[in-house]
């Protein structure tokens, strides 16, 4: 119990640190946030009014104090760009990213783990090389380029996939946003046609994004697996005459399941924040695009809010995998 309290305290500290860093970055950027809000041609009076509205006439420490107090109340301030509460904005765009990242991580797990296992079992032979090469490509090719090539090939040339965006144009706005996750909303509304449309729009960007998580997950799986295959209990199992399949999938994989959860959680967190470029190429209106836009227009409240949410998600997922680890791994409960 005390351990959990300690854990939570460190989480709170991490969050506070995150707040401070983003806040300071926001203040040292050589961009005038007032200017960003009122535009280049506002008169002096309008400018000054906005400066006060944004609280920029106060000393820095006071601004930070106010900011932390607001955040504690769940108030992330108002976005200059959309004139709506940042929290509402983030809640509106986050589901799109969640949907994309979830689809990508599913692809990453379904293909990455078997690929990693295969590479480990056939160490040094062609399946291993194949997985390694694919992983290397995943690491070195920019997602931006891969996304455009994917669009060119599957959308423009072959017509297998629909174009950018979350839906075909004429389906836009037909389903009430309940969760904000279009595929789920469409099912809830019983609109199967829209569901299929949303799903088809999801496949290509999720595959592109998923490819990068396949690379990471398969590499980690491979090294965990190699570690296990050297252990004595594997030899024992083989000597006992268990089938190879059973040895690999039940014994070895069962033993690496727990560290794999951590890997998947981390990969998921990375996908949640790392989809910026994918979102740009596919015109996918998610958190990544929102933060990018906010940065480009010096909308500091939105940048801070968005970053905070990303940080919180990251910390949350870390915490979750930590707790799962303790729960599932008997050795950690000592």
């Amino acid at each position, binding site marked *: 119990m005390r351990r959990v309290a300690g854990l939570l305290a460190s989480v709170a500290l991490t969050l506070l640190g995150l707040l401070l860093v983003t806040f300071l970055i926001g203040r040292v950027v*050589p*961009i*005038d946030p007032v*200017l960003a*809000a*009122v*535009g*280049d*041609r*506002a*008169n002096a*009076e*309008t400018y000054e009014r906005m400066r006060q509205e944004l609280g920029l006439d106060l000393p820095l420490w006071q601004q930070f104090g106010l900011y932390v107090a607001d955040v504690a109340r769940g108030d992330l301030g108002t976005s*200059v*760009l*959309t*004139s709506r509460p940042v929290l509402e904005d983030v809640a*509106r765009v986050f589901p799109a990213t969640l949907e994309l990242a979830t689809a990508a991580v599913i*692809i990453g797990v379904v*293909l990455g783990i*078997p*690929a990693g296992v*295969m590479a480990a*079992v056939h160490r040094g032979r062609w399946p291993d090389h194949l997985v390694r090469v694919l992983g290397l490509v995943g690491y070195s090719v920019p997602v931006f380029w891969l996304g*455009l090539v994917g*669009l*060119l090939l599957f*959308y*423009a040339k072959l*017509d*297998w*996939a*629909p*174009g*950018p*965006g979350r839906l*075909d*144009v*004429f389906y*836009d*706005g037909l389903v009430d946003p309940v969760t904000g996750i279009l595929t789920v909303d469409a099912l809830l509304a019983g609109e199967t*046609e829209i569901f*299929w*449309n949303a*799903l*088809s*729009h999801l*496949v290509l960007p999720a*595959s592109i994004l998923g490819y990068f998580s396949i690379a990471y997950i398969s590499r980690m799986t491979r090294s965990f697996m190699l570690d296990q295959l050297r252990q004595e209990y594997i030899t024992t199992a083989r000597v006992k005459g268990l089938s*190879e*399949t059973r040895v*690999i999938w039940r014994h070895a994989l069962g033993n690496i399941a727990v560290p794999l959860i951590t890997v998947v959680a981390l990969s998921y967190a990375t996908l949640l924040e790392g989809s910026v470029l994918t979102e*740009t*190429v*596919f*015109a996918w*209106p998610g958190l990544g*695009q*929102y933060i990018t836009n906010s940065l*480009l227009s010096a909308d500091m409240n939105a940048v801070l809010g968005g970053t905070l949410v990303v940080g919180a998600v990251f910390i949350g997922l870390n915490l979750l995998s930590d707790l799962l680890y303790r729960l599932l791994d008997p050795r950690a409960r000592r």
Partner: protein
Amino acid sequence: MDKFARSLMGAAFVALAVVGTGVGTATPALADTPKDALVMAWQFDDIISLDPAEIFELSGAEYGAQVYERLISYDVNDVSRILPGLAESWEVSDDGKTYTFKIRDGVKFHSGNALTAEDAAYSLRRAVKLNKSPAFILTQFGFTKDNVDQKVRATDSGTLVMETDQAYAPTFVLYCLTAGVASIVDAKLVQENEKDGDFGTTWLKTNSAGSGPFKLRQWKASEMLMLDAFPGYWQGGPSMKRVIIRHIPEPATQRLLLEKGDVDVARNLKPEQFEPLRASKDIRLVEAPKGTLWYISLNQKNEILAKPEVRKAMRYLVDYDAMRGSIMNGLGTVHQAFLPKGFLGAVEDKPFKYDPAKARELLAAAGYPDGFTVTMDVRNTSPTMDMAQTIQASAAAAGVKIELLPMDGKQALTKYRARNQDIYIGQWGPDYQDPHTNAETFASNPNNADDGTSKTLAWRNAWDIPELTGKTASAVLERDAGKRAATYQELQKTVMEDSPFVVMFQQVEVPAVRTNVEGLVWGPSFDTNLYRLATKK
């Protein structure tokens, strides 16, 4: 082992097949957009508000032009022709200070409310009292939040009276009334949605209350803007029942969508994408000259750049023609005066050509026979960056070494407004269609002190010009249009020959449109791009 490998491969294939069918069973992308809807791909992430009293960005202004109307309009093919709008006629008193507008009868707002002079009075007062960024276009006639209720009033439901503080040139006043900030809103509807005396601005940011050919259906910031036709529009409802504008940030993605026919119009293609499209029979490129100018400016706080010969030399170190052909590739025409072509009194002479030898002579006369070194602040976007690099190369021919400092647009602007730059390269677009808008910024600097509040472009480059400032101020009071035009011609020639400004190009907007779409109007400013007459085959 082999059996295992096989089963594993099998599993992988099954997984791939599942993913594959997801793609395969996708509803086939329709070859075309719906016949009664216009679909556009555009970067419109600059929209901050949809309230016409606050809109001051290019894409916002274009939205405002579809949804709201003004008292006065002008001919998109000839900016110098002022036309009736919601006011069908007007009179100016003999002393030049009182304007009486006759409001058009029978115009309805989207809500069904009748549009009256009271709505017009409310709208102008509202814009003045809200005092957002574009409010200066109206407050320059002496309106303040305290006096505007007396100065702008409806004497009956069909008559609006407006009193200015001085006898301005009538064209100046009327052109300002064609600006978006002078849009007429549905007073009843806006007042119904007022919260804590905010003039309904919170509500109007995401709703519409206009009388234009379209009404707002839905806006999602940086995602989508959807308009519905207003069948009751007084000049006839649009044939497009709906306009869907999608925010597509990446030009390459825009081009893919356009070529597939998933959008009808792509707004942000780059010059290098034009060539292949010119050959396409499904797509045509429209070239619409806009009022925006590209210029470089030389900060007079830098003692080298403050020398008149150096200012002159810089004019000969820009390779105008080469840039027009390569970087601009249709996105601009060479222009060297501060009034864009089409404005009252615009000068179209182009006295300067790339001439490094001449520049060298001038630099030698200034005491820099071997040139000098300066920095240039550049927004890291295309085509600004490409232009800066070309100028860097052409200026080097006379020994002028320009170090480029790439930065984000907002950062460049922050620095520019603090007068901390050497050379700035950028754009300037007129705020309304009267010559005063540009004269005021290029040729007027009322207070050159560092704390000067009027941050005109002349001020930002520390160019102290009491005489030109006076001349600019008197030009708006000249009621004879011919004389007024002559004054602006003089001002332009002075600025052209000897100022910190090297004006280079006038921008041309190049939207790419599917050939089955006709009737879109691409006017001289963003708020004269009109969708009402668009048809689709």
